[in-house]
């Protein structure tokens, strides 16, 4: 289907099902239970999952296929965001032109940065991309304040009057898709459960699925093979008379455009841009997402992105009061002891948990989360095989009995 092999189609359909059913899957706990704290099915976080998923998918096209480690990818995300919000401020509040503008801006910037940085390879390439990103961040924060809003960033204001939108005077515009507000939601209450279906989330999810599909096609195409050849041995490739640079540059720009798409989507979902989106830690975060999930695998980066964003948003909101609530059924002494044990890892300690998780995963699952999934899968499959053999044994036994 869609020009994909059966296996890839299955993967695509699987990811599509996961994203479309996310409002159910991410809200497994009833609203009034203590576990509701772990529910992630609210619009903001769901949007962040797919947006950072898109970002990581794009990053993986560069890093996973060519092995070129860009340490400045957040710059493209930021440039895309600035492009998108200016589109909304000046032209229209419809998100489509904004997103397209984000992709174009990021693509052009990636072309410039890639053209220069790809003259070097390995760590030298990484530092060049890092340098460009850090310069973008520093300038956006300070001297470019008239364009970027500086520290406070850019938001839609009552004074913005986009050309194609009929806003009442003093009305603050809202991002929409042909009149559908990005924040409008449909809420489904089933018993104690609440599921939120948010318009913005589904638009972002569709973008991610398209991005995922394109990424599969790239991975399986001759172009993708060429990129893999760059990774395994660029020298040998050059000896055969092939110039690898156009291929790597194309991969770099495509991956920059994914970042721009993510940036545009971020603005579309939440009309705000700040320069810290381009800081090196943001670039580092997408590197970590890809490695955590599994470099070079199709679905890994999406999983990595989901994991990091989940920790950041859910863990940081657990406080001592909530711990006391969880352990309230225990005797006071044990309750306080348990709270004291968990205290360093929640709330302000979410970084600590994240750091430990990074270490544990890379130590015990060298291939990232995807390898973890495969191992679990293997366990089940082994069981299946046993089940098979049991069944076939039974079948064998049955025959003589006839």
């Amino acid at each position: 289907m869609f020009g994909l092999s059966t296996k890839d189609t299955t993967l695509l359909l699987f990811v599509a099902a996961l994203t479309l059913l996310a409002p159910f899957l991410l809200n497994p706990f009833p609203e009034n239970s203590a576990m509701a704290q772990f529910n992630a099915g609210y619009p903001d976080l769901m949007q962040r999952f797919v947006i950072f998923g898109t970002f990581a998918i794009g990053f993986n096209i560069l890093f996973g296929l060519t092995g070129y480690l860009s340490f400045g990818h957040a710059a493209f995300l930021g440039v895309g965001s600035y492009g998108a919000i200016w589109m909304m401020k000046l032209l229209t509040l419809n998100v489509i032109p904004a997103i397209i503008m984000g992709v174009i801006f990021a693509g052009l910037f990636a072309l410039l940065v890639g053209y220069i940085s790809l003259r070097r390879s390995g760590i030298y390439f990484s530092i060049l991309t890092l340098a460009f990103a850090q310069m973008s961040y520093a300038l956006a924060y300070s001297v470019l304040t008239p364009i970027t809003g500086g520290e406070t960033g850019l938001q839609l204001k009552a004074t913005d009057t986009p050309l194609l939108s009929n806003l009442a005077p003093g009305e603050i515009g809202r991002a929409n898709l042909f009149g559908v507000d990005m924040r409008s939601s449909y809420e489904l209450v089933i018993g104690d459960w609440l599921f939120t279906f948010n318009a913005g989330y589904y638009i972002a999810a569709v973008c991610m699925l398209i991005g995922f599909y394109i990424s599969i096609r790239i991975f399986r195409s001759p172009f993708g093979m060429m990129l893999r050849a760059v990774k395994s041995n660029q020298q040998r490739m050059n000896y055969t008379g092939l110039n690898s640079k156009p291929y790597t540059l194309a991969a770099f720009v495509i991956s920059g455009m994914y970042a721009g798409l993510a940036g545009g989507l971020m603005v579309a979902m939440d009309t705000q841009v700040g320069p810290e989106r381009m800081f090196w830690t943001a670039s580092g975060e997408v590197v970590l997402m890809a490695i955590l999930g599994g470099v070079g695998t199709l679905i890994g980066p999406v999983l990595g992105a989901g994991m990091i964003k989940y920790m950041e948003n859910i863990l940081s909101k657990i406080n001592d009061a909530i711990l006391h609530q969880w352990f309230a059924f225990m005797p006071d002494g044990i309750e306080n002891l348990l709270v004291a044990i968990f205290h360093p890892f929640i709330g302000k300690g979410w970084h600590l948990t994240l750091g430990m998780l990074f270490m544990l995963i890379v130590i015990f699952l060298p291939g990232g989360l995807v390898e973890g999934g495969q191992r679990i899968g293997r366990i089940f499959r082994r069981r299946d095989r046993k089940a098979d053999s049991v069944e076939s044994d039974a079948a064998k036994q049955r025959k003589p009995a006839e």
Partner: protein
Amino acid sequence: MEAIILQILNGLDKGSAYALIALGLTLIFGTLGVVNFAHGALFMIGAFCAVTLQRILSLSYEVVDDTRTDFLGNPLKVDVPYVNGWFGPEMGQTIIEWSVPLAILFAIPVMMFVGYAMERGLIKHFYKRPHADQILVTFGLAIVLQEVIKAFYGANPIPTPAPPAFTGSFDFGALIGFDPNQIIYPYWRLIYFTFAAFVITAVFAFLQFTTFGMVVRAGMADRETVGLLGIDIDKRFTMMFAIAAVVAGLAGVMYTPINSPNYHMGMDFLVLSFVVVVVGGMGSLPGAVLAGFVLGILESFASMAEVIDIIPGINQIIIYLVAIIILLTRPRGLMGRRGVMED
């Protein structure tokens, strides 16, 4: 003229900080081939060795002073350090004031242990793993280390002043014949520069003139052959890691009077130190030192008001701009070796 001499002095001293951190990093990164994102954390732990020693020396008992009250109106409890009791108030105070220089002695064994434990416990399992895995595991370690420090010492910077003998500045300009107050230079920065020069020389001498150093240099060039010669290169590399940790840690200790240490100072320096190492060229110790000083001096020049007036924002980007120019004109940085981390 005065302005230029002044900025060269400032640059030397910024440069010595960069060079010290980059030196340790390049020992690990350029020679063992491990991308160590926890190197900034080692620098930070060094700085907190000074803080810890200061805390230990100022361990106190409480004396209730009935003549004064605290913020709630209760009698004021005054903390009296034990050292004051043992050595008398004046001597005790002097000991506390000298905690930063004393911390050098304290930091060397601590950092050696930290480096040893890190290499044996974690890094050694990652020599053969892809760089990506090294990044993730060392980044995770860096986060864990800084969060632990934050849990103990909070997020605020902690003042760790230099001993009174070294506070204040001297008039360097007057010494070489300029008008007074034109070129002033703090004593502590002079000490920092001298210290850095000493440590750098010591590391070079160690690698150049000892058998140990020779083996390590041979191992850097061709690890397998050295292994085949029956030399236990692994053990040497562990030592190398510990030395790198000590260099980073001492850079941190000596830096505390310049900037009050806080838990994220390592992350602030991390990116910069990678830039310095790469601009210097992978696998080259002199390159790292040279790049440290070049970037430090150029950064100082870029922060002059006259320069900012001509190119606004240049002080924000100078280091990265210079890095790009150098890497584009010299493919392997200033003094890089062919084939190190190029693929």
